[in-house]
């Protein structure tokens, strides 16, 4: 569960767990987080928490609310954000639950949202026969429950995004050499074509087309359409993707071209 850590001049004062749907911040004593300082308005700001997300809203305070140094009216809090109210700082921490094991990641489960966390106020409840009778109209889009309505079912397995399981690191090529095609024959001979996009098609639509896919571990050519398949280094390809090597020669729709890696 998300936490707010209140501090003044680097001195930790107290931490608060955001367990309620609405957490109020202000100078007056009825606030959930009371900051007794004249720079703080009586009702200064509010934090709305919906399951694992929290939203900060300034309630028109006299001296305003800053997040990471910027004044905000409304802000979707991200873990690590620092909220400043007067001289006070509130650090927002929201780490994905640590007790979720690898096994939990892999299993998709159905969860009912606990009634306490999200009070049940669905507009159309499938168990309610009345609503069902009405519901035999053509569209089901008519009524969207309020944003705070509970989720009926949860698929938490893929939910916690930040800790990417080690099995699947985001494979972004780090300063990899850029694949480039140079046309060797035909009217466009000499022209260079950088393969910057994830997919680049080559050839003549309706006659012969091949695609070069830029992938984390290299460039791959695949036949797309036409009776003839592309030829790489004198060998005709089959329907499978073929990884291109530096200085491979490709023949396609009667045109010769060279693939090379630009450092």
């Amino acid at each position, binding site marked *: 569960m998300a936490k707010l850590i209140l501090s003044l001049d680097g001195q930790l004062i107290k931490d608060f767990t955001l367990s309620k749907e609405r957490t109020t911040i202000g100078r007056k004593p009825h606030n959930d987080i009371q900051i007794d300082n004249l720079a703080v308005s009586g009702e200064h700001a509010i934090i709305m928490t919906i399951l694992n997300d929290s939203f900060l809203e300034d309630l028109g305070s006299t001296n305003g609310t800053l997040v990471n140094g910027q004044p905000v009216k409304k802000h979707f809090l991200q873990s690590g954000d620092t909220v400043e109210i007067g001289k006070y700082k509130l650090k927002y921490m929201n780490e994905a639950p640590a007790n979720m094991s690898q096994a939990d990641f892999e299993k998709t489960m159905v969860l009912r949202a606990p009634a306490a966390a999200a009070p049940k106020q669905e507009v159309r409840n499938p168990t309610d026969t009345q609503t069902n009778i009405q519901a035999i109209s053509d569209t089901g889009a008519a009524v969207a429950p309020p944003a705070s309505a509970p989720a009926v079912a949860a698929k938490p397995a893929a*939910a916690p*995004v930040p800790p990417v399981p080690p099995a699947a690191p985001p494979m972004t090529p780090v300063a990899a050499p850029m694949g480039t095609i140079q046309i060797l024959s035909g009217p466009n001979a000499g022209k260079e074509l950088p393969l910057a996009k994830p997919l680049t098609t080559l050839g003549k639509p309706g006659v012969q087309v091949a695609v070069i896919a830029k*992938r984390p571990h290299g460039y791959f050519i695949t036949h797309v359409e036409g009776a003839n398949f592309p030829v790489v280094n004198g060998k005709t390809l089959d329907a499978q993707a073929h990884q291109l090597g530096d200085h491979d020669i490709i023949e396609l729709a009667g045109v010769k071209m060279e693939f090379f890696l630009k450092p």
Partner: protein
Amino acid sequence: MSLSASLEMAKATHTGMVRSHNEDSIAIDGEIGLAVLADGMGGYNAGEVASGIATALISSETREALVSQSPHQVDTNGSPLATGLLRNIISKANTSIFQSANSQPQYAGMGTTLVVALFCNSQVTLAHIGDSRCYRQRDGKLEQITRDHSLLQEQIDSGLLTKEAAKRSQNKNLVTRALGIEPAVEAEIHTYPAQEGDIYLICSDGLNDMVEDEDIEMTLEALGANLQLAAEQLVQMANDNGGRDNISVVLIKVKKDFPADEGLFAKFFSWFK
């Protein structure tokens, strides 16, 4: 009347890079112009069971129903028969999954998302539940046609979140409707005109969570001539980006218009006009 001459279909499904098994299930039938995709949820292998029941039951029941009915005709309320037909069949699937879940402890609480596309008379009738999607590529532009039944979509609709902010939410994968977890469920069903050249993409969230819409659009544009390759390329892109969930893709290309055969009676009567 077979639709295989007018529609081209391709499918691909993959476990992804993280999960141990594939809980998605897909079924296509080019003859009757039907595509079904389900993304199951539930412990152990219950998710696969739920999505498997959904696709198997919906495809067989639809095939059977189409023997005696023409889905393009309209009922007394003016909605296409396809709407009522899909509504009934989806309701049956819901009951079937719900009952299995309640009679067998290992399946308790299982459920699934669902997208069904039924093509008929140059139209497509789309039914969906949960956060699996249908997109349409027309004139080089990709457009999402279904709207997720999810907490995030509701927050976007209410203005609490922007589409961009939703990507940073910790509340992903919370669906507000699912097939098989309540005694009854309402599918959202709409009918749209289909045009020659359209490509329809039906996918589980394992695709659209991992691959940006613009990259999907580019892939369909570049590889539309080879639908199977396009489907496999989309799965590969999701895996190259981390493949955190199962990925399933169904592509349907409208090769030419497919007006419904008016039937013998209509032909017979037109003689006398």
